[in-house]
């Protein structure tokens, strides 16, 4: 593969770091040290898309989310603490959620965005809640933290380092106006924003109106388990986006992009009822995938959700048990339909028709009460079968049914309740027209 001759390492994972690779190193040097190094091209656009995805997902915790490029998403959580049961519970949820997305992450909690960023970068796990206690932990940070996300450039850092500043406390102690004359106002400004002496408003991330996400596969594959694993990741992002809008979707589309110019494979997933639970959606998608034979290896996955439908905010309510049974019932219906096809899952209703084969119908719409004054069998044969009347004992009848002259399917029959030799109760009829044959039409189960 052609590479830029002066390519540098942007990031390295833990095992590469232990081998001696470090960010900022020339790629040639890194490859010389570790020939087996697995190198992937850094794609800033992909990084932005990932931040966007995380920002959408984080909408489930707070409405005020902003993206702080190149590697940070800021959440304003103070108004949400009560809802989620305190900072610790919320932190658990955020960390757990990011783990589920499969992202390596660091969390920091502070009253100002810049302080949160610096503290998380420095690995200070203890959250700072009170702005008056923000001073000491920030003072203890090394000088390098100052350049992170604040607009302070390396030249300024080098200068500060050269005059003997190693901690933020020492930079804070410098005379402010003298510093400002030499380097513009950026250092003082960054410190003021971090310590909360100056407001630091951030643009709020506006989630898109329609959810779309795309996930390229690291290695093309057609294995269901791999596809499902990656689809889960897409669905978690969708779940956060939906939770932020207090909505669910009842329809979404999964597009499998193939290598080369092969046409895409599209799966239409209908969930029956609005839903935002990724486990339920994943189960449905699994049914669809199992029916599908994927012709070619999949290169990337795309998820496109339909317009969101309002759904109550929190999944757990007072009638949680009832609610989960209801959701399971809807899920069961949707899964059976997805796997077996819509024709194999039927509902019953009655219709106001005297003809037995028309009085029961499939469908769910509200029907008029059935017109069936006589006894009716629980089993109806889809097609009446001719039978020999001499083996029957007629118990009740006849009940004459003459109807249907208007639609070419007229019936003129005398129905009887009969018992056969084996003791079964049958519903039989005799045609009133020649040749006056006898037929079996049902069993009294």
């Amino acid at each position: 593969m052609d590479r830029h001759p002066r390519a540098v390492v942007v990031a390295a994972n833990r095992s590469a770091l232990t081998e001696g690779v470090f960010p900022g190193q020339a790629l040639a040097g890194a490859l010389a040290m570790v020939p087996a190094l697995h190198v992937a091209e850094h794609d800033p656009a992909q990084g932005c898309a990932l931040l966007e995805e995380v920002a959408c997902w984080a909408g489930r915790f707070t409405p005020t989310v902003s993206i702080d490029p190149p590697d940070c998403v800021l959440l304003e959580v103070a108004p949400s603490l009560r809802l989620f049961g305190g900072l610790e519970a919320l932190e658990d949820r955020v960390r757990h959620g990011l783990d589920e997305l499969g992202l390596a992450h660091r969390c920091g909690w502070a009253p100002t965005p810049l302080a949160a960023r610096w503290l998380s970068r420095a690995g200070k796990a203890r959250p700072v809640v009170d702005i008056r206690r923000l001073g000491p932990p920030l003072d203890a940070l090394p000088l390098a933290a100052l350049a992170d996300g604040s607009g302070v450039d390396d030249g300024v850092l080098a200068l500060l380092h050269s005059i003997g500043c190693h901690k933020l406390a020492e930079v804070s102690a410098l005379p402010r106006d003298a510093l400002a004359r030499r380097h513009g106002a950026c250092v003082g400004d960054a410190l003021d924003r971090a310590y909360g002496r100056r407001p630091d408003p951030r643009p709020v991330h506006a989630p898109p109106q329609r959810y779309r996400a795309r996930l390229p596969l690291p290695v093309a594959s057609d294995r269901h388990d791999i596809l499902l694993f990656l689809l889960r990741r897409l669905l978690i992002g969708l779940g956060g986006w939906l939770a932020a809008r207090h909505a669910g979707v009842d329809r979404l589309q999964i597009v499998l992009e193939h290598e080369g110019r092969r046409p895409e494979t599209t799966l239409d997933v209908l969930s029956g009822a609005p839903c935002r639970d990724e486990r339920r959606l994943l189960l449905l998608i699994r049914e669809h995938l199992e029916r599908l034979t994927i012709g070619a290896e999949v290169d990337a996955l795309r998820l496109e959700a339909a317009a969101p439908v309002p759904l109550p905010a929190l999944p757990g309510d007072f009638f949680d048990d009832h609610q989960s049974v209801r959701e399971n019932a809807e899920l069961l219906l949707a899964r059976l339909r997805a796997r077996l096809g819509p024709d194999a899952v039927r509902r019953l209703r009655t219709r106001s028709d005297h003809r037995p084969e028309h009085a029961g119908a499939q469908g769910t719409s509200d029907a008029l009460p059935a017109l069936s004054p006589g006894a009716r069998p629980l089993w109806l044969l889809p097609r009446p079968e001719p039978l020999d009347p001499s083996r029957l004992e007629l118990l009740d009848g006849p009940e004459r049914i003459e109807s249907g002259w208007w639609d070419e399917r007229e019936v003129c029959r005398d129905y009887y309740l009969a018992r056969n030799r084996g003791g079964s109760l049958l519903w039989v009829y005799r045609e009133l027209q020649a040749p006056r044959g006898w037929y079996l039409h049902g069993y009294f189960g």
Partner: protein
Amino acid sequence: MSVRPISLDQLPAGLVWRGARFAAPPPSGRPSGFAALDAVLPGGGWPRGALIELLCEQPGIGELSLLLPQMRQVAAPRWLAWVAPPWTPYAPALAQAGVPLERLLWVAPERPREIRWATRQALLSGSCALVLTWQSELDMAALRRLQLAAEQGATPLFLFRRRRAALQPSPAALRLQLDVGDDGELSVRVLKRRGPLLAAPLRLALPDRGRPGNTRFEAATAAPRRHRTRARFRPGLSAEAQVALQHAVAGPDPAPARPAGIPARIDG
């Protein structure tokens, strides 16, 4: 010195355990709607989350009526699932019997594998009040999977099979063989239950069956009841009224025949 013989029944409770009794009180079941049947079922009713096999050779002997009391109790949001029924479940008759049609889910997969899959999913989802299925060809592993799914989903599964399946061992919690008695009533023979063996079959008068079997009808002399679209027809009772009537007619069941001295066998 004379010893007065006393019967075992006169001894204080707990001293002697007799083979025809249950050793321990089994978990409570769901009342079947038939007192005579409840009396012989462990727990006083259908087991709550278990495989129940109903072996029956011919249709039309009241095999569905036996379950109607259960089906009537199905309420939203739970389903009443019928997986792969052999004929069409007839909506007017079910509505007449008080079965909530809007909760009935008729699943008709084509292949046996899909039938087994659909049955298991219905059980595992925990959203079905009861599941009915018709499958005769099942091996031991498939039966065991169904039994496990029923336990896991706490949903009773009623499995209708042909009578020859009785020869095959089964992990079912309950196996009943259904036949027609001489008088047209349903005869229930308990082949297996979690408790002592029961020798004599049980007779059940099913209130929901079309008509009492012994009133012979003279077809030649009676004028036919007519349902003509333009002619007047006799307005029948409403479905609820008929159900109520049928309940009123159904009297108390006779006490179960329970012979003493049957050797005990604990199944399961």
